[in-house]
């Protein structure tokens, strides 16, 4: 993610217009800096363990048991939430909620800010969300809230998140959980 704040006249900033794009393979992004994956994982764990109402937003790709990888990831995400002392609010689907979303229990990419405001979330992980919808949501969250956004992506990552790691498969989640446990122990939380 590049600098906070509006890009041109739009209230919805886009990091690419400030020269920040998805990290290369094997790397991660912390704000606008390309860093090693492990460095990013440590920072993500620290943010989640120290910010108020840290929450994981699992998307359809891990909510529904449509593949063995999805099932394995879902189990690991539950473990991740316990290690990070985090809440879990699902993104079941991508269609706008009408007439009104129940923001306490659900998040939607078309108005993710409502859920973040409602639950006073200061750090959040997006995982298992299709990339386009994650990007649409991350831009809105960045413009409308003070939430520290984290994208754990199975593909190329998301430059509009404040921290992003890419190519995250089940084995990578195991690695993250191990690092998160170490950080938790170091912080004594």
């Amino acid at each position, binding site marked *: 993610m590049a600098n906070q704040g509006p890009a041109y006249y739009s209230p919805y*900033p886009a990091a690419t217009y400030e020269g920040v794009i998805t990290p290369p393979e094997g790397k991660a992004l912390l704000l606008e800096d390309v860093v090693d994956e492990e460095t990013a994982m440590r920072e993500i764990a620290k943010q989640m363990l120290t910010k108020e109402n840290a929450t994981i937003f699992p998307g359809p790709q891990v909510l529904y048991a449509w593949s063995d990888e999805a099932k394995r990831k879902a189990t690991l995400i539950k473990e991740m939430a316990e290690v990070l002392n985090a809440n879990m609010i699902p993104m079941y689907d991508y269609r706008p909620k009408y007439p009104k979303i129940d923001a306490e229990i659900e998040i939607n990419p078309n108005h993710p800010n409502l859920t973040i405001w409602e639950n006073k979330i200061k750090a959040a992980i997006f995982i298992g969300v299709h990339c386009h919808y994650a990007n649409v949501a991350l831009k809105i969250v960045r413009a409308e809230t003070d939430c520290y956004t984290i994208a754990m992506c199975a593909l190329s990552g998301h430059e509009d998140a404040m921290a992003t790691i890419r190519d995250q498969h089940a084995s990578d989640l195991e690695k993250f959980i191990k690092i998160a446990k170490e950080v938790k122990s170091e912080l004594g939380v």
Partner: protein
Amino acid sequence: MSKRSDMTNTHNWSGQKLVSTDYLLFEAPREKHFMTGSEVLKEAMKRCTVDASVSYPITPQSEAAHLIGELWAEGYVGTYFRGENEFGVMSEVAGCAMAGARTVTTTSGPGTLRAMENFAQWSGTRIPCQLILMARGINSPLTIQPDNLEVSYMLETGCMIWYAENVQELFDMSIAAFTVAEKPDVHVPIITVVDGFFVSHTREAVMLPADDIALEPYDPYKAPLPPIDSETPPGRFLRDPFVMKSNYISYATHASWQWEVRSAVERSRPYAEHYLKGLIHITGEDDAEIAFVTCGTASNQAKEAHRELMKLGIKTKVIKLRTIRPFPAKELLEAVQGIKHIFVPEFNVVGWLEKEVRKELYNKCEADIVGGPRVAGGMSMPAEAIIAEVMEKINPGKGA
């Protein structure tokens, strides 16, 4: 009938061995052939494991759509059909791509404008289809010869736009185009432009790899939106309507969505850099004070002018833009360092490339920018016309 289920892990449905894009473009042995642009496009698509092609093969644009139809008859293209008109074609291309098919079509000139609404819809739905635009200008009066006015209409559709100079670039670009467009963080349509007639109808030498190898198939499950699939969650019979049913939130979604489409085009830069070996290509003298900024066949004519001007002791360089969207702003700015006069020769009356160049260099470069020479409607652009423009600037009133 050719289809995905006939594929193996190593070969596609037509029996071609599946290879990486890097191998196909950079490593596979090549042999020299002598072909028109339309024929070369057929050869490129033959090596792309194309699932679907839709056409409105109106003559006399080019033979390209007809030749892709032959590929279907020969078993190389999964499915091929004709739309009732250009709007129908582009809509059907969208349907094929949303369902997970690697899809290609061709058009030009008036047909492009008839289908116009679709191009912004293509990018908004993040489909990685390819349009080969063999530019021929816009009515009226009718022209079937080179004029690239229609490209100006495509600039803000949210699609990537690449511009090939000759048949060799058309072959290599149209293969790379699928690969870049299908990257999960890009995943927007790509328009590969060539100048009609000069490239589509003219026979040139071209180096081609063997035709028993082809690209790996497109994987729609790496798309940034769920493909149409009613069995895999979140099940879809259609792409989601994104601003309906909630007026309260629609502005936020729509604004973010549009930024995201344009961000996707920006993310294509490093991939294009790799597969095209640079977003721009420079020919000529490093210490020149005169530069021609070009795309397409105007590059070829500018190179001829460069050679003739060298005989007069006048150093120039040609900066050919291979990508128009994303626009290679940083590369162009670096290339014009030390340049005093920039000329933008174009095959259209409006000077859309000159406007692009002026916008990107405004307040960043002190060079004088000349929009010209411009020809249109099928006129050729002899090197003498470019030389005359240069001489008028550096030696006013004395001629070439």
